[in-house]
């Protein structure tokens, strides 16, 4: 089980540079014979024949994946990528630092799980963070995303912004959302934020002023007990600010999703947490109850965090039904069907991003594999004792979101 590599290093970069020391490129297949080649477009070629026809159709630069051909004569401007990037396809976008040859795949047109990391900085330090924060000056990332946005296929159904905490630089981030609304008005936009910034009326007004019809803030809330939430996110007063933020957002009719990650600290309190949400925040737009991704800090804190999902199976079913009974939209993310009570299968979503989603050998003979969330291929997987291929399709309904 290995995730798809989304970052790496080019084996060669020739003739490509600019003042900023970074560039955003969109790879295009050649066959289409297109007339819409822009300055950021780079031909995706497999061999010299491809390169020749790319040149003929007007490309100024090319990208060769996993081959040794010498492009230099046809394309003085080119990059070569190792074979692990063979999955790149038409319309995909990469960010490249020419001098270091480092690259990151920013957007894959064929994927429904495109998420842009906005910053690595964060004012939380969650015990199970899968993207451990770093206190670095990474403001350039926002520039890179701004460059990438115009290159995204406007028919893309959904994109995400994540961090770190996107609202730390909220003015610049809201400007990015503004650009997103103009460029991608039909794309739903999901932002993962700890929501504390929304405790400020100014931030919420700016956010609401974006006016994107499908903009949603996904905000984590780990317990109805503030001490426990604050402990999990390692920040005092986080609960208070996050809840005030949610209230301000709903007061301005902004879409809010609450995300509860389940581990040894939160799962045993799940019924209490769901009851509290159902009673106090029934007006949020969605609640996601999420299995733990065993990577990043979650590995470092395994002893404090690991719980076999089979041990909270009943509480999860109860929690879902409590939320559902007040009309809240609920989903269960990141958990395989065989670990869920069948009563809540209809709430289970294949949520794990395609590039890090995997199944086990046991899944081969399973009747519900095609609708099962499966596993994270990142980090170190811990197998539940409850895994078991399902023999029939009994009451299977596919995910709701």
């Amino acid at each position, binding site marked *: 089980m290995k995730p798809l590599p989304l970052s790496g290093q080019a084996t060669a970069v020739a003739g490509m540079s600019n003042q900023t020391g970074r560039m955003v490129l969109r790879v295009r297949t050649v066959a289409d014979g297109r007339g819409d080649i822009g300055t950021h477009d780079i031909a995706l070629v497999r061999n010299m024949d491809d390169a020749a026809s790319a040149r003929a159709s007007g490309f100024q630069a090319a990208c060769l994946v996993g081959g040794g051909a010498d492009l230099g004569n046809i394309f003085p401007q080119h990059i070569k990528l190792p074979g692990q990037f063979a999955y790149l396809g038409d319309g995909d976008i990469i960010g490249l630092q020419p001098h270091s040859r480092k690259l990151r795949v920013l957007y894959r047109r064929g994927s429904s799980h495109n998420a842009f990391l906005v910053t690595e900085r964060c004012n939380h330090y969650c015990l199970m963070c899968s993207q451990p924060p770093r206190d670095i000056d990474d403001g350039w990332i926002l520039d890179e995303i701004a460059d990438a946005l115009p290159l995204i296929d406007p028919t893309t159904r959904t994109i995400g912004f994540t961090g770190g905490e996107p609202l730390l630089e909220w003015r610049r981030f809201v400007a990015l959302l503004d650009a997103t609304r103009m460029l991608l008005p039909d794309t739903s936009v999901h932002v993962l934020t700890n929501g504390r910034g929304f405790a400020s009326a100014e931030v919420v007004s700016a956010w609401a002023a974006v006016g994107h019809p499908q903009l949603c803030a996904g905000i984590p809330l780990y317990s109805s007990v503030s001490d426990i939430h604050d402990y999990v996110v390692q920040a005092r007063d986080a609960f208070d600010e996050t809840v005030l933020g949610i209230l301000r957002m709903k007061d301005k009719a902004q879409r809010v999703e609450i995300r509860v990650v389940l581990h040894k600290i939160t799962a045993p309190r799940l019924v209490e947490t769901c009851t509290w949400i159902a009673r106090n*925040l029934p007006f949020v737009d969605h609640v996601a109850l999420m299995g733990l991704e065993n990577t990043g*800090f979650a590995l470092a804190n395994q002893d404090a965090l690991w719980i076999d999902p089979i041990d909270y199976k009943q509480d999860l079913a109860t929690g879902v039904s409590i939320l559902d*009974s007040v009309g809240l939209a609920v989903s269960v993310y990141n958990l395989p069907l065989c670990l869920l009570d069948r009563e809540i299968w209809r709430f289970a979503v294949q949520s794990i991003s395609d590039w890090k989603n995997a199944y086990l050998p046991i899944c081969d003979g399973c009747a519900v594999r095609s609708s099962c969330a499966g596993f994270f291929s990142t980090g170190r997987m811990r197998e539940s004792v409850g895994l078991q291929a399902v023999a029939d399709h009994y009451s299977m309904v596919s995910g709701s979101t």
Partner: protein
Amino acid sequence: MVRFLPEAHFASSGAGDLQLLPLRFERLDDHRYLVANLVGDILLMSAAELDRITSLAVVPGDGLYERAVSKQLIARKNQTSQLQLLGLRLRSRMAFLRNATPLHIFVVTLRCEHSCPYCQVSRRSTDRDRYDMSEETAMRGVDVALAAPMQSIKIEFQGGEPLLNFELVKKIVVEAEQRSAAIGKVVSFVITTNLALLTDGVLEFCREHAVLISTSLDGPADLHNKNRPRPGGNSHTLATTGIRRVQEILGDDRVGALMTTTEASLDRVEEIVDEYISLNLDGIFLRPLSPYGFAIKTKQFGKYDASRWLTFYERGLRYILDINRQGRYFPEFYASLLLKRMLTDRPIGYVDLRSPAGIGLGALVYNYDGKVFASDEGRMLAEMGDRAFELGDLASDDYRSLILSEKLVGLVSASLTQCAPQCSSCAYEPHCGADPVYHHATQLDPVGIKPLSEFCARHKGIFRLLFELLEGSPEDAAILRRWAAA
């Protein structure tokens, strides 16, 4: 290696760091208390636990601290989110106050061909001129109804038997429709009738004007006919045939029935429910007798007390839950109303159970003779000579003068559960309501001494029963939650 801070670093440091939020409690027995937060979320606790909460002798990790924080009984001192949430929820629960006087009841005649001993309005069998509402009075009633600030109002026709004056019903409907359309308001209609005089013409009119039908059905034939005597002793046949005809011609959802519990009903609740089921009605409202009208004169009221009624109610509710468990959705409407209050913060301004009371603010009653009452029960009292709830007369008053009358303002403000003795400290207060008419009728005081009040005893009993079902019986709780969500 990354460093994480221990749980204790984020935990409250104890009493000095905590504040007690508004809470109310109710003793269940020697050891157990129901403890409710400001908006009526209820928690079961031992006496010792309640003591610890009120003295803030709780610490993170002891379990009680977490329960109390989650139920918003206590909060960290520097926290504002819990207070904001409670404030927001209270505002939502009280939002029914934005909609003044949604219901307008027209007593189009006092005549009736039934002679029910528990009837709450004195019936007169003849003398059309004297006991029918005049067209002129009716039109003034329409004026007042349409002057209510609400965008959509409901007009209910009552009697006596309103079908005895159906010509006037038709005139009011047509007039209200035309005039409401002109000012952009919406009016819906319901006729409360015993169905004995139902004709094709009535049904045709109801279909054309989307008029709902509400009727009385007390149970199986012998019980119903005993409760509701009429010449021929065929009230039950007329009612059930009528219900079926309305269902057939107007649709299943266009007719509802109300039952009244007499002493004879007390050990027959299953049969009563079965009768409703067999008629394909969409639920039942298990109602106690009220202390008004003929129910007093004929000594029907007072034949059973709150505890006998509660036994009847609980037996009925459990039977209804059984039916639901077998897969048929069939709510008990009163439970479902109270559950909406207990399990959600939706504004439920049910006219007979709210505070500020629904008299006038929830409904106005236009009597056949033009007198205006603050509630239907209020006009029944007037029939017995007690005019405490008479607000004015259509001949001289308008909406403002009725609603702002000193009498109404006085009665409503005197009876607020939020500050009435007993109620203000009652755990169920957020879900209960003021009933100044009942307490005036039984104790000659709009507030009433609640420990002596059967209204209070009944409600405490139902709240407790519902709480116990929600906590103790997951299967029933799931059904009750579905009723609340409907």
